[in-house]
């Protein structure tokens, strides 16, 4: 039995005008410590699936099991990072990163120190009393990562967390997130529309086809890329070959639609 089991998920959105099937027949197993990317054209239900796995949306059909237990009712097992940092502007950085601990009543001297240590490791020391608006975009996203990791989630969801950053910051942050997750042995799912990012960061890339969202194909990344940091993986000779393969598949999906 795998760490995370996604079993036969269907999801339909209802509006007054129509019923739109966003996801259909999604089944996937993810092992502990694995890094999986969801890649696909917009409107293929990647973010919906992420919300379902996180227990934020109840699927029309199907179940999600985390360590053999249904996901509903599990609290703080899953960390979620959004496209923007969504740090609360009226809270200081310290208040922001301790928010998850406070809400789940796990806040004590030990967990607080652990969170502040993590902030230091991310290269964000001495900013605890500052407000989010005083930091740069990259720093804010790092603080948001600390906030997500502070509750020690078993599974991390990354919903295009680098898409709002400039390219250089994005590359640096990819390395930082990848190293941090490796050192904590965390399982992570990344939603992205950036092929390069998916290849550089993941162990497996799941390609989705749109309307309704289905799993089109799963690519296993070769070991030589997995062992490298994202920045170095981008420069590896195997990288461009895989990039071309996935690019063609993605392209065929989009032309096939027309």
């Amino acid at each position, binding site marked *: 039995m795998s760490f995370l089991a996604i079993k036969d998920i269907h999801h339909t959105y209802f509006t007054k005008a129509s019923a739109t099937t966003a996801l259909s027949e999604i089944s996937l197993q993810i092992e502990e410590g694995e890094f999986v990317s969801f890649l696909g054209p917009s409107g293929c239900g990647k973010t919906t699936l992420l919300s379902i796995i*996180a227990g*934020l949306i109840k699927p029309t059909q199907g179940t999600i099991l985390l360590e053999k237990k249904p996901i509903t009712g599990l*609290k*703080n097992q*899953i*960390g*979620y990072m*959004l496209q*923007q940092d*969504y740090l*609360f502007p*009226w809270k200081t950085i310290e208040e922001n990163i301790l*928010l*998850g601990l406070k*809400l*789940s009543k796990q806040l004590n001297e030990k967990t607080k120190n652990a969170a502040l240590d993590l902030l230091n490791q991310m290269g964000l020391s001495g900013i605890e009393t500052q407000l989010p608006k005083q930091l740069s975009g990259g720093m804010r996203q790092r603080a948001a990562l600390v906030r997500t990791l502070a*509750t020690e989630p078993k599974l991390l*969801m990354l919903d295009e967390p680098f898409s709002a950053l400039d390219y250089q910051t994005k590359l640096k942050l990819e390395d930082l997130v990848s190293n941090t997750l490796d050192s904590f042995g965390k399982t992570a799912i990344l939603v992205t529309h950036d092929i390069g990012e998916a290849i550089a960061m993941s162990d497996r890339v799941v390609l989705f086809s749109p309307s309704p969202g289905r799993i089109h194909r799963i690519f296993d990344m070769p070991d030589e890329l997995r062992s490298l940091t994202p920045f170095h993986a981008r420069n590896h000779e195997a990288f461009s070959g895989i990039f071309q393969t996935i690019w063609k598949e993605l392209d065929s999906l989009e032309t096939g639609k027309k």
Partner: protein
Amino acid sequence: MKQEKNSVNLLHKNYLHSLTIQKRWVRFYQIVIFLLFFSSWEISSQQRWIDPLLFSSPSKIWKLFLEKIQDGSLMSNLGVTLTETIFGFLLGTLLGTILAAVLWWSPLLSKIVDPYLVILNAMPKVALGPILIVSLGPGYPSIIAMGAIISVIITTIVVYTSFKEVDPNYLKVLQTFGATRLQCFKEAILPASFPTIISTLKVNVGLSWVGVIVGEFLVSSRGLGYFIIYGFQVFNFTLVFLSLLVIAVVATIMYQLVELLEKKLIKE
């Protein structure tokens, strides 16, 4: 290089100087309007171009002002009105915010009461005055209620709208931490709407003056509203104008204080 820097400095100096000059002119015309208004009032009253019985004159009002200060009646009545107004607008803002929170809590309830809110908002609240006085008695409670009721519905509508407009992604962050609805309200909804609540406070200051003065008209026992209605009944319009001017000054000061509070609370 040095010369260039000097010329920039000079330009900047000139710019600052032009700003000061403009500011002075604005202030000058403001004072001119003030003096022109009161002096023409005084002269036309003395020359009997306007009826001094109806329109009084600044000198008479000033004399009455000193008189009323000396016998202490102005201060005591101002105190009454001021207390009622402060309680009225605080109560109105507080109740409105609480109502908005209840509506946010239950989307179904908010759908159900929506038409009633529209009706209550459209209704002239001062028309409720007689009923309030009959039910709460002719004293502080009914006048404070007037001051509050006039602002409570509009506060509810404005604050509720701001609650609904909080970026849902903040709630998503909280929900991933397993936050309850109460926690979501405390951590995101309320603090994000704080600027709106403070700005309704500013509007409510003005509204509460209306409610309280009308309330004092009706109860007619104390306060500046009572001064106005009494002055009207005995044809002492100097008293009416005195009350009006005092209200104008005090209401302005109150508004400025709330604005100061706004600047302090919202450090942006």
